[in-house]
């Protein structure tokens, strides 16, 4: 009879799952390439404000991070509820910022030491007093390039 009518009736052939690993590996590689390992766990609340005129921070090796915010619940007993500065893994006072920057700068390769950016990741409820102190410290160690890290969004959402 016809060449195309050879199927057994009623039986659906099993779907081959042989390519499933390939698909999953593809997903895996995608996530491996787009994500970065967390280098320090946050001990402060860190909800960044929004801004629309942002520039991307390319080249992660040229960035030093400073986190500012209220200590999280577990650390509240130890450090109080006033906003604090987190450098690497510990909460510190503004006077330690300078030393931290110098230390981090010394760790970077020679040719990058002059082009470093300090990324300030500040919680939106922090007050400017602390930020001014940090800025003053940064000026003392000549780390003048700063980036106020924000989320991309409408800046007027900050005011609510």
């Amino acid at each position: 009879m016809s060449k195309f009518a050879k199927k057994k009736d009623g039986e659906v052939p099993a779907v081959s799952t042989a390519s499933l690993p390939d698909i999953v590996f593809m997903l895996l590689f995608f996530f491996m390439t787009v994500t970065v390992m967390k280098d320090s766990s946050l001990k402060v609340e860190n909800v960044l404000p929004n801004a629309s005129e942002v520039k991307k921070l390319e080249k992660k090796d040229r960035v030093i991070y400073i986190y500012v915010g209220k200590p999280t619940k577990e650390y509240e007993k130890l450090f109080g509820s006033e906003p604090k500065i987190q450098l690497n893994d510990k909460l510190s006072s503004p006077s330690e910022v300078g030393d931290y920057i110098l230390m981090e700068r010394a760790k970077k390769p020679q040719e990058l030491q002059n082009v470093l950016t300090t990324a300030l990741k500040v919680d939106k409820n922090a007050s400017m007093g602390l930020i001014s102190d940090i800025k003053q410290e940064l000026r003392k160690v000549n780390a003048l390039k700063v980036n106020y890290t924000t989320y991309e969004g409408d800046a007027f959402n900050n005011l609510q």
Partner: protein
Amino acid sequence: MARRAGAPEVSAGSMADIAFLLLIFFLVTTTIETDAGLDRMLPPIEPPDTDVVIKQKNIFQVNINKNGQLLADEELIELKDLREKAKAFLDNGGDGTCSYCQGRKNAESSDNPSKAIISLKNDRETKYSTYITVQNELVGAYNDLRNREAQRLYNKNFVDMEAEYLNPETDDDVKEELKEKVKRIQDLFPQKLSEAETSSD
């Protein structure tokens, strides 16, 4: 049929499970970093050797108090009006040397964009989010003006040109070409945003 040549096939059925395990591991240990923000330069700590005399009319003073209220050029204004006000100030071109300015040429306001300075002052108790919003608006004012000029000269947005220039994936030849254009636009409206030290009272 007896198998003689070749080892029996290894089942690949569990491969997916292994890969899923790895996938889930990477999903939970990593975060997609938010690494965008407002770039700013802090002023150097040593004051310049020579005292620069700046005319009062070339300074656009912005004050934020601890309640988040805004004083721009001795006028209490709303945050949403700040961008327009800053643009009007920068684009004024009072002395007539600026050929591309479209402002009102008010003699009481700034002479030309290269002399116009925006000075931002805040209280110690100002909220950071308010400060960022103000910074954003001021940077936005510069970007708007630069976009306008870039559109006029190159039919492109300045922000896009700069982003392409800073993108590490852009080719070197393209970069070289963009560098000049970006520099030219930046010189038309140089970003002079001074951040005074915070007042404590």
